[in-house]
């Protein structure tokens, strides 16, 4: 090795990827890790295999009562079976053994990598122990009744809004829409990026967002009215429109609350305290059932729902903006004023752009909360086509007396919120790592 190589080697940080850790295992630690993973595999695969062998649902004759025949019968049988009990018992014993073995040996591992592997395996092995114990306890309860009420999984598929065959038939159209959206989004972003001389990353993000958006749009187009997909659509429209109103109005309110003049500050504070101090469900009911009909404003319930959600979000986001703006050093606005910018120019070009970057993660959090809060608009009498996820779930429950509908609603919310929560996490991580911009 030449001197130059030696210097270069010394300046690159040591790579400690999974390959490194794999090289620094002992025979015991490697076997232990495998055992930890294997116990998990045994528990999950075993449970699914047993349940699958009994079946997940079945078709009942239309005139059969729920007691005579329920679509959930095979699942209930599987859950109560001795086969499943055996799988669960073995999982508990094996899991406990691996966990205990880990506890007593991790200190003797010669390398940090080996020790970490043993600790991880031990923790991993406790997971099937707890889950299997839970399922064992569940076996001793009234599984039949629970399954009849909550586990008619076919209901969710039936009420999704788009039958599988229709979906396959329409797939070319949907993919076409998706492609058009993706291309347009990428094209527009590319033009903007070229104009502002930014990196390539925003184009990729826009393309993916466009493709996904087009796909979702295509599916929504063929969905039938009282269904989970329609419910998701309405949940998204309600929260999206509410957010547009709320985030805009919130910024104005925030600026008002920071005014040095009490006559500007006070009305904004009263507004914020009112909307933060009363329950959202009261605000929705009061506007929809009381105020709007009484004043003959002639707004339909859907518009009222969006307005109240937006006005409510404005109050909460105003506090977030205010915190963001006040977190900036005083010197920023002083510097802006000393070069001759007016107060509004200082806000517009110096303070707000910096504050917005800081408050994007908390604002996204408010948005996730808003998505869930759309459930409260179900107190308004929305039409079938306007119902959001919770309203849909309740409708389906009331027409079928099948509580699995609630499960469908929950699934719909998770499909929307989990990507949002992921985005918040990613944005927060990027901001923490010192990058001030969100994209690019």
């Amino acid at each position, binding site marked *: 090795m030449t001197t130059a190589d030696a210097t270069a080697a010394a300046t690159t940080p040591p790579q400690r990827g999974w390959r490194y850790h794999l090289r620094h295992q002992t025979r015991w630690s490697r076997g232990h890790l495998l055992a930890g993973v294997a116990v998990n595999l045994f528990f999950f695969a075993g449970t699914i295999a047993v349940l699958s062998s009994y079946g997940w649902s079945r078709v009942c004759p239309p005139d059969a009562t729920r007691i005579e025949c329920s679509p959930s019968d095979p699942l209930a049988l599987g859950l109560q079976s001795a086969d499943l009990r055996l799988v669960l018992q073995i999982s508990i014993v094996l899991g406990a053994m691996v966990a205990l073995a880990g506890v007593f040996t991790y200190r003797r591992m010669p390398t940090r990598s080996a020790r970490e592997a043993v600790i991880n395996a031990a923790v991993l092995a406790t997971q099937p122990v707890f889950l299997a114990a839970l399922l064992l306890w569940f076996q001793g309860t009234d599984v039949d009744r629970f399954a009849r009420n909550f586990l008619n999984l076919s209901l969710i598929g039936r009420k999704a809004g788009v039958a599988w065959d229709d979906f396959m038939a329409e797939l070319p159209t949907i993919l076409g829409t998706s492609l058009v959206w993706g291309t347009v989004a990428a094209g527009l972003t590319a033009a903007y990026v070229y104009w502002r001389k930014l990196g390539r990353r925003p184009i990729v993000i826009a393309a993916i967002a466009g493709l996904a958006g087009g796909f979702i749009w295509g599916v929504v187009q063929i969905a039938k009215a009282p269904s989970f997909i329609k419910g998701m659509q309405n949940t998204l429209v309600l929260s999206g429109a509410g957010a547009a109103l709320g985030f805009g109005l919130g910024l104005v309110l925030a600026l008002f609350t920071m005014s040095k003049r009490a006559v500007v500050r006070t009305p904004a504070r009263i507004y914020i305290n009112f909307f933060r101090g009363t329950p959202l469900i009261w605000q929705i009911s009061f506007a929809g059932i009381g105020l709007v009909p009484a004043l003959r404003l002639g707004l339909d319930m859907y518009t009222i729902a969006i307005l109240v959600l937006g006005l409510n979000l404005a109050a909460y986001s105003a506090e977030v903006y205010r915190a963001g703006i006040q977190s900036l050093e005083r*010197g920023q606005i*002083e*510097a802006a*004023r000393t*070069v001759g910018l007016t107060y509004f*120019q200082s806000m517009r070009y110096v303070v707000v752009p910096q504050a917005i970057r800081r408050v994007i993660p908390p604002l996204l959090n408010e948005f996730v909360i808003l998505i869930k809060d759309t459930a409260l608009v179900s107190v308004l009498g929305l039409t079938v086509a306007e119902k959001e996820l919770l309203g849909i779930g309740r409708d389906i429950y009331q027409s079928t007396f099948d509580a699995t509908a609630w499960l469908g609603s929950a699934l719909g919310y998770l499909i929307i919120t989990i990507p949002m929560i992921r985005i918040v996490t990613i944005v927060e991580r990027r901001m923490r790592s010192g990058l001030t911009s969100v994209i690019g």
Partner: protein
Amino acid sequence: MNSDGSLIRLEGIHKWFGDNHVLRGIDLSITPGGVVVVIGPSGSGKSTLLRTINMLEEPTEGKVFFDGAEITDIRTDLDEVRTHMGMVFQQFNLFPHLTVMGNITLALLKVLKLTKEQAEERAREELNHVGLAEKDFAYPSQLSGGQQQRVAIARALAMRPKAMLFDEVTSALDPELVGEVLQVMRRLASEGMTMAVVTHEMGFAREVGTRLIFMDHGTIVEDGDPRQIFADPQQERTKAFLRQVL
């Protein structure tokens, strides 16, 4: 210019922060081209004095005149006045979301309404002036403290001000970076810029200042030629302070 030939004139300035009487009757005139250096122990009101000159702090009592107009008059357009008075801060206060170029051109575009080309040309000129021509598209976070402070000076100079206010501009810098900033200020003084400088750099005060002001407890204790004051201070408090810092 004011009626008495000065560019900046303070008359009977008092400033209270709550019950804290920070400035206790300051009278001060600064002639065009003068470099007035203000020294004094911390808490003596030096920075507050400087900040009343461009009305970042409104004096509780007293009048401030700048270039023939009373700017403490409520009818004065302070935004317009401030375009003729540059200020540089201890903490630089560059806008972190804008490049060096963006920092300098912002006010040129939005206040002076220059075209983008004119603004960028002027920004380049000022960056050359402070020796940072090659840093035009860097972000403030990518610069050293000394470089950031020079950009802040360029940002102020780009407005072509009649006077510059410097508020402890080297106090937040590492010792080895102080020199490059003082160098820029020295050149600015030699070019005839009217300057008011609050500083702890006694060497700079002696060498560059045309007039030295020693403040304590919100009053001007001693006022005169820097060399003379450093060599032979007249007041006991000045003597005590100089003994401590020199």
